């Protein structure tokens, strides 16, 4: 008797600690704050179809990884908190198509984001007009000083990092550009006709350098020098090589949710959860009396455990996930109902209270296990099924089923035995029975 009471007190203490953890880590800047999905926090979810038809099959995975890196860099430049960039294959059951998913929390103006993601670094070669100075700081703004040559990064076949060979110090990092056949012809044409002039090289509208053309270059390679550090030169090489994205992408789906709408949904979800819990508690206590009260306490502990798990795993909460959690709360008492009904039957059979409780739990266990197997099957298939929306629901639902099974069996049992109410007569009997029994 004392051992079980100690256990009960221990359970309460642990539950209180879990409760404190859940409560104390709610500040938005806390490491363990709830992670809200875009539909609750507001933001933009973009799905791009990646066209891998022109990529050799062996290189698809590599190209997709490269694509992810490029897009990640662009998205990071956008300055959004915790952006998510991932690639996925629609799986054997889809058509095997690859896609790119970009999540931008807090961004509700999607125009800029789409423009940013779709952008390719633009490398341009422009001739400097006679008599114009190229050393002025605002030189790149003075468009009139330059003459388009038609040669751009589109004619690039590859770029490589090298040191020296440029016009500067021998150890300075420079970028070696190799043009494709058409680019080579164009470059040879430009250089042969304009010997002695400066050829300015622009990246995204900013002039990198303007070397003087010494001779006609027919081998199709050019060296770009600027004030590169090894790092910036390397980045430029990567950007140029991926310039036209390694895999062309097309926007397939957009979802934008305003922050206010997300807040409303969160508030409504929390309110529904609290209201549902209170209504459920009222029903359980009125109908099942003492076992009902115990069920409510263990249900409350169940909720705390779930919330703590959401923070620890962490689970990204969505409206569907909250719905799954609320549903799991309703299902979690299922086990307690089974147990209370069984205890009632055992008592009716004339068993002593403690014996009835132990027997009731033991007999109810099979039914609880069977019913939860069906729920877990459904959750696993739903999780596999897929989209982020459904995964969120399935994960919460599946977790809920497993945790509730454990909490109903162990926590409720401990409390009921620890209370040690005798159901033989009087108030005790009233408390242990349920429904319309007196």
């Amino acid at each position: 008797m004392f051992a079980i009471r100690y256990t009960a007190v221990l359970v309460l203490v642990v539950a209180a600690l879990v409760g404190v953890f859940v409560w104390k880590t709610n500040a938005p800047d806390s490491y363990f704050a709830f992670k809200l999905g875009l539909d609750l926090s507001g933001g933009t979810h973009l799905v791009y179809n990646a066209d891998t038809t022109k990529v050799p099959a062996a290189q698809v995975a590599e190209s997709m990884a490269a694509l992810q890196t490029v897009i990640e860099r662009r998205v990071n430049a956008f300055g959004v908190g915790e952006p998510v960039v991932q690639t996925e294959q629609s799986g054997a059951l889809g058509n095997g198509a690859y896609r790119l998913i970009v999540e931008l929390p807090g961004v509700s103006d999607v125009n800029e984001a789409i423009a940013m993601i779709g952008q390719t670094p633009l490398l341009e070669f422009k001739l400097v007009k006679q008599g114009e100075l190229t050393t002025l700081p605002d030189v790149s703004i003075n468009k009139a000083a330059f003459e388009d040559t038609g040669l751009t990064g589109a004619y690039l076949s590859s770029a490589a990092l090298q040191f020296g060979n440029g016009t500067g110090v021998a150890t300075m990092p420079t970028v070696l550009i190799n043009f494709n056949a058409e680019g080579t012809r164009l470059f040879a044409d430009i250089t042969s006709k304009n010997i002695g002039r400066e050829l300015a090289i622009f990246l995204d509208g900013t002039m990198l350098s303007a070397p003087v053309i010494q001779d006609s270059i027919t081998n199709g390679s050019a060296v770009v020098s600027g004030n590169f550090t090894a790092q910036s030169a390397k980045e430029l090489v990567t950007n140029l090589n991926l310039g036209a994205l390694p895999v062309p992408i097309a926007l397939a789906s957009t979802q934008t949710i305003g922050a206010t709408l997300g807040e409303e949904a969160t508030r409504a979800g929390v309110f529904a959860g609290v209201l549902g819990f209170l209504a459920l508690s009222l029903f359980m206590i009125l109908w099942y009396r003492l076992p009902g009260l115990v069920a409510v306490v263990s249900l409350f502990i169940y909720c705390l455990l779930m919330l703590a798990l959401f923070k620890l795993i962490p689970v990204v909460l969505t409206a569907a996930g909250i719905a799954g959690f609320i549903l799991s709360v309703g299902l979690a008492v299922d086990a307690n109902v089974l147990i209370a009904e069984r205890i009632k039957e055992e008592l009716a059979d004339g068993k002593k209270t403690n014996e009835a409780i132990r027997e009731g739990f033991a007999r109810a266990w099979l039914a609880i296990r069977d019913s939860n197997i069906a729920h877990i099957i459904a959750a696993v298939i739903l999780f596999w099924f897929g989209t982020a929306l459904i995964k969120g629901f399935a994960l919460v639902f599946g977790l809920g089923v497993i945790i509730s099974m454990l909490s109903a069996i162990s926590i409720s049992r401990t409390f009921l035995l620890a209370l040690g109410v005798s159901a033989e007569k009087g108030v005790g009997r009233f408390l242990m029975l349920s429904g319309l029994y007196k």
Partner: protein
Amino acid sequence: MDISKNLKYFFILPAILSVLSIFALVSFGLKPGIDLVGGSMLQVSYPEGRPPVEQVRALVETLQFGEIRVQPTGDNAYLLRQRDLSNEEKNQLEAVLGGLGPVHEDQFTSVGPTLGAELMRKAWIAIVLVVLSIIFFIAFAFRRVSGESEKEKGTVSSWKYGVVAVITLLHDILVPAGLFAFLGFVNGAEVDALFIVALLTILGISINDTIVIFDRIRENLRLNSERHKHEEFESVVGRSITQTLARSISTSLTVVIVLLALYFVGPIATKDFALTLIVGMVAGTYSSIFLASPMLVAWQRLSSKKN
């Protein structure tokens, strides 16, 4: 509960609801949401009060984006549903809407047709998988019964329990599906991925009520045969229903209570989801009592007549 006298009345409600649901499904059909077939949805609010709906409709017509359905929502917002839009097209649409007063974009979703088709295909596969695993689960749950109940004269062999359970499940998802076909006809309700999730969840939950009753029937049959007691099959079924009634109703009630909270005060995004589940739960509870068990009795009567 006296099943033998009231057998035919038991089937009335499930039969009427099934017929109505099939009628609604056949004549109206389900309207798939944009996440399943592609399309777009734009919600805009007019903080200074929304212009009349006719005005909005007339204005968006001029864009020639095909059919645009305009629906008032909330206090000062509109929902516009149309084919999937590119970003430029969405900007045009918003510019036009902005002509009627300061406008704020609350949310926008656009799904391309291929993405929708893929989700639809996945949905079908998930449905088939869940149904198959439920059938395996039933076979597993009833593995102990075969042979044992055969000894008892006039009882039902185990595979019949399985068939009856599956028919009951069909009924349980037919009712919410029929309701949404009807709602789709009345106010354009669409079924999205969450609706399919709800149906699959109903399958997982409502199989339990049926299994619990069947379990009791088997347990009582076994006890009878151990005690060499003769009892009519229908009276065993009736007794089993009575024994599990409180449990069945209570467990469904607890779920329905929280779902009602979700439906009435929860996020708009999960309102239809909650409704589907509520209807499915209620259908699942009464069908296990008023459809599954009477069906067993009726089947048993039919086969004993033949003998």
